[in-house]
């Protein structure tokens, strides 16, 4: 029972953790990517379509990453060269994704709701006999996606602290003018961050649809927004981002469980993660404390 809860929490958190890692990269660069939700959704659609038609999880994932990278680069270029507003373009990408995926499911599969790809390949899952009963039994049943979700924040931690590029990237988020004067190519680094954010949200989308072998309209279901919440709660620290994302994944899992176990309105329960994040954001003073000028 406990193992199942842990495993399900992790599986639920995987897309959130991955997307949050992508969001974190852009947050650290100073231009937080609002389009995560849309990137996940489009990526999820193309992941399952390509993997079922090629019969390869790898190609599906590759397609998902390409699509998500295209979307986040679109946001970046619109903001950098057309001087568009970051929030507006981000939201536009989210809306675009909803529209495009619905239209394509209808055009290609004549369905507006759910498309099930019965023959599509599933990712390999961990199944090691000796783990059972050793306290790590929950590791069995996790796929490569879930494992990559745990490596991603750790990778970012090293990247930010130990590499020159990581340090330069962080400087853009703290003080872009000083960074520019110091000789940092601020916008080129931001592009890098957006490419990275595309890779991570592509993985998140693939992790969402490929194990299920189906695409449901609007299947990202707010995970991109939850990832943004995790990024903001994490205050630019990859480990806190990871913990926040896990916590949100757990609350999502909890709401599913409560729907089955209790008689509370399921619609209300679906909003549980949002309530949780609202409360946490309100309690944690966050970074704003430093920025705000004292007026007591």
């Amino acid at each position, binding site marked *: 029972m406990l193992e199942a809860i842990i495993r399900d929490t992790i599986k639920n958190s995987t897309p959130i953790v991955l997307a949050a890692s992508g969001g974190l990269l852009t947050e650290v660069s100073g231009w937080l990517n609002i389009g995560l939700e849309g990137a996940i959704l489009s990526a999820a659609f193309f992941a399952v379509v390509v993997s079922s038609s090629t019969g390869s999880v790898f190609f599906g994932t590759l397609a998902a990453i390409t699509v998500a990278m295209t979307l986040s680069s679109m946001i970046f270029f619109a903001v950098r060269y057309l001087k568009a507003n970051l929030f507006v373009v981000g939201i536009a990408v989210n809306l675009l994704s909803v529209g495009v995926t619905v239209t394509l499911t209808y055009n290609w599969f004549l369905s507006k709701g759910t498309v099930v790809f019965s023959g599509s390949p599933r990712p390999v899952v961990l199944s090691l006999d000796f783990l059972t009963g050793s306290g790590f039994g929950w590791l069995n049943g996790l796929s490569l996606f879930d494992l990559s979700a745990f490596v991603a924040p750790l990778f970012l931690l090293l990247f930010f602290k*130990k*590499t*020159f590029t990581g*340090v*330069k990237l*962080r*400087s853009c988020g*703290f*003080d872009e*003018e*000083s*960074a*520019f*004067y*110091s*000789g*940092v*190519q601020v916008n080129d680094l931001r592009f890098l961050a957006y490419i990275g954010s595309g890779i991570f949200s592509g993985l998140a989308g693939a992790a969402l649809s490929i194990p299920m072998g189906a695409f449901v309209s609007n299947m990202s279901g707010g995970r991109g927004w939850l990832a943004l919440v995790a990024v903001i709660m994490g205050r630019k620290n990859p480990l806190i981002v990871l913990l926040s994302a896990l916590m949100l994944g757990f609350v999502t899992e909890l709401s599913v469980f409560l729907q089955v176990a209790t008689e509370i309105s399921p619609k209300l329960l679906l909003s549980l993660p949002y309530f949780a994040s609202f409360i946490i954001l309100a309690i944690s003073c966050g970074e704003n404390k430093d920025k705000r000028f*004292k*007026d*007591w």
Partner: protein
Amino acid sequence: MSKPVLEINDLNKTYDTSGAKALDGVTLDLFSGEITTLLGENAAGKTTLMKVIMGIEKPDSGSMVFKGKKYLPSGPHFANEKGLGMVPQSIKVVDRLTVIENLVLGLRSNGKNIRMKHYRECVRELMKKYFLQLPLDNEVASLSTGQRQKLEILRVLQNSPDVIIFDEPTTLISDREKEELFEIIAKLRSQGKAVVFITHKLREAFSISDKIVVLRLGKVVFSNSRYKTSIEELHELLYGGESCTLSVQLPTSDESLLRVHEVSVEGSSNTEAVKGVSLEVRRGEILFVSGVAGNGQEELLDGIFGMRRILSGRVIFEGKDVTGLRPFELRKLGLAALHYDRDNIASCRDSSIRDNLLVYSLSNGKWVIEEKKHVLSARRLLCDYGVTFGEIEDPVSSLSGGNLQKLLLAREISCEPKVLLLGEPFRGLDVKSLESVKLLLTEAKKRMAIVAFSADVDEALTIADRILIISEGRVVYSSDVRPGLSAPDLRKYFFGATEGLE
């Protein structure tokens, strides 16, 4: 003569926002092993020229040749890679990163693949070489202004560039740090670097440079070896021979307007920055609070003006206890302050000149803004105080440092406060603006009491009625200004070596 490292040919630059011609056919050659000083008033185009060299601004026409090749910079990064470096006028470091991380930002890549661990060694060697010691793992936010500037210098020097530009480096630092800086510059010359030193202080220019170039309104009006000119000639060129002397003394009334009694103010990270300072000012006098920057002067101003927590002691304004009141309450009572930090706190960079000028008269409780009246009064103020500007609706960030300073003084004085606190009123002003600001202050002190916080003792002596020196948060010296009191005498007290005379 050898070939110049950097040739600048006929650069022109006009700013779109103001239509002002910042560079007008500037031609200049920089040679290795030579210190070139760029002299000029505020807004003469010195900084613009440097920004063009670093690629921050694009020139409208003209060309540059660096080491015999055409040079078209696209930004500081490009300039760094080629071998040009600049220490900018206002300090540009990232507060939230550590010192070593800040150094990484300016590191030229040039193909080498240095590891973080190895890099630390390189930086240590560099610090030894130039006698610049900095705590590598501290966050930059905890560094003093002088240390930040050292960090910027290191950031440039680590790439061993061929051309190094110092844009008004002496405005922010103490005399001792200035000497260290000059030593570094001399060392760079002996290494065969081309050094550009920008200043508006004649004496500094004269003491260290080989060649002096004078800019006026974007034009090079003079360029010659230092040995073939004289201070008088340069003064004539720069300021058209104008000079004015000030009569200072005014009878002071007995009525004490502001009394600060044994005040201790919180510094950063739970320290005490000001330790039991007392002072008193009367109408008709200018009190200077001086000492080496970073010894508690800024915090004292913040404390009196309610922007920082007072730990103990009282501030009494016209007999009323105003300790810990908020700035807007203090302003209502008639206490005004001009903060040290012009760019971030004293002004709102993206708002228009007009809005910045009228921000207090706009918040007088009325619902509707009387547009015409305000524009008129703003124009009159700008004219009275001699602020040079493009359009009244331009953002304040389009003004040069000296003009912004005059605008802010105009704002504070025009509110007619009873007591005016000024943080570094003379920072970054050229001689002409300096004289006019001094005149303004002597005029203003007839109506109010002025407390100026400034590290510049020489200027303080020309205008102050009384001087107070603070060292490590304590008053170490306090005296009336009388003939015979000289700056070197006062500097002795700077490091708190002697007990204060009363």
